[in-house]
């Protein structure tokens, strides 16, 4: 037990990297997702096709392979970042597809008459998105987006296999040293993950109530 208590601060510290990766990737994948969703519903066919290819390829590829291609493929063509930046890129590319599809569902739930009416008043496509479509779509997809971001939080663990010392990587190292408390270290790691995920759930629930009031 003492051994576990001694190991906890190191484990908690590793969660700082996990959280950094989660928040940054959530932000960037939200931006990528919004742009991709907008392109997907745009009146310009090549934009729609481009996003369709991106979503179909990346969303259906295992995240480990997305990481592999990003971390080891890009340097082959001369693009080289830190391992953290690569991890952020891989997670953004992957999560961006899920955000885009979630948003598309929200957009499709908006009655087409509203969009036609907005266009009839002379608003451009971008203005329609900005003032009519996205505000409503984003509100209606807060609960499914929460699931996407909680999945992202746990997906950051893949970065441990690609040079980022986050929670799972640190846990693996600790298990090698503290061979007498393997299950305890893993259990503690799981509990910390669950605690943070529950916290995110609460934050999104708050956001959801707030979104309802604004509407």
């Amino acid at each position: 037990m003492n051994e576990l208590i001694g190991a906890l601060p190191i484990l908690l510290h590793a969660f700082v990297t996990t959280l950094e990766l989660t928040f940054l990737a959530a932000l960037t994948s939200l931006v990528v997702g919004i742009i991709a969703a907008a392109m997907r519903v745009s009146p310009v066919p090549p934009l729609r096709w481009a996003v369709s290819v991106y979503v179909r390829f990346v969303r259906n590829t295992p995240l480990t392979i997305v990481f592999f291609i990003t971390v080891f493929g890009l340097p082959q063509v001369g693009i080289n970042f830190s391992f953290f930046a690569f991890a952020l890129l891989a997670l953004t590319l992957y999560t961006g597809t899920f955000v885009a599809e979630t948003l598309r569902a929200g957009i499709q739930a908006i009655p087409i008459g509203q969009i036609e009416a907005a266009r009839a008043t002379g608003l451009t496509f971008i203005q329609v998105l900005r003032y009519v479509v996205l505000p409503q779509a984003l509100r209606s997809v807060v609960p499914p987006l929460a699931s996407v971001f909680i999945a992202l939080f746990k997906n950051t663990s893949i970065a441990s296999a690609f040079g980022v010392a986050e929670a799972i990587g640190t846990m693996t190292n600790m298990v090698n040293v503290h061979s007498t408390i393997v299950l305890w270290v893993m259990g503690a790691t799981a509990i910390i993950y669950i605690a943070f995920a529950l916290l995110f759930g609460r934050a999104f629930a708050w956001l959801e109530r707030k979104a309802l009031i604004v509407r």
Partner: protein
Amino acid sequence: MSKLNKLVTAIGVAIAFAAVSSAGAAEFPAGSKMAELAKAGKIKVGVQTQYPLIGMKTLSGYEGFDVDIARLLAAKLGIKNENIEFVPVTTPTREPFLEQQKVDMVIAAYSITPNREKVIDFAGPYLPSPSGVMVKKGNPLGIKSMDDLIGKKLCGPSGSNQESFISAHFPEVRKTMVLFDSSAKCAQAVINGQADASTTEVAILAALAKQNEGQLQVLGINYDMSLYGIGLTKTEDKTFCKWINKTLVELEKDGSWAKAYNETIGTVVPGGAPKPPEVGGSCPG
């Protein structure tokens, strides 16, 4: 029943008994782990799957020095090759698998440490395994010692003996270390220039250097002379542990140990088979 009849019956029983015991586990004490395994005719062995020449899963099955040792030990128990079930293990699963008796033994680049001996038994050691350093061909950074790695990106496998050893003995080097889940990825990172050097067991480095002919180079820096042991479920009597140690000595004497070494690690590490380590582990003497 006549006296003759009784005699004939007695002889019959004796012959039957002798036949059974010679076919079965005559040489193993009743109730021992060896007798149990020999009777079952099969064994579960935990092995690594990503350690070239040590424990590697390929399309054609498992191979490497650890796998050969498992086969040699199983043969001594009268277990055929096809009845050995190899179970992939990783750093976090080795001890739990043994504690929960999911496997009969673990032969998986498993260094003997006092901390591990608190929860499991080690037979052996069966192999000295130094760790080394590998860099890009030509050693562009001129690395000559572990101290030259301070401030450099040294790549190592997550949860490995090297990571623990470097944390304890070269904390300055550890600060800028990057960890991947396999040595093959570290080799790729060195080739790409994403890492300056890579570390793991010398045998694995040599295998990776050979696979990536002309791109990588193993330096003459050796550290952490750890000894690999055979992980066993902890027992009071240590019968199985003692039997493995005795058998390892036999395998060393009859040349099978050196043959296994030369066919695996010896194909890339120069200098021929080393002197096998003195057996002891959790059951010395």
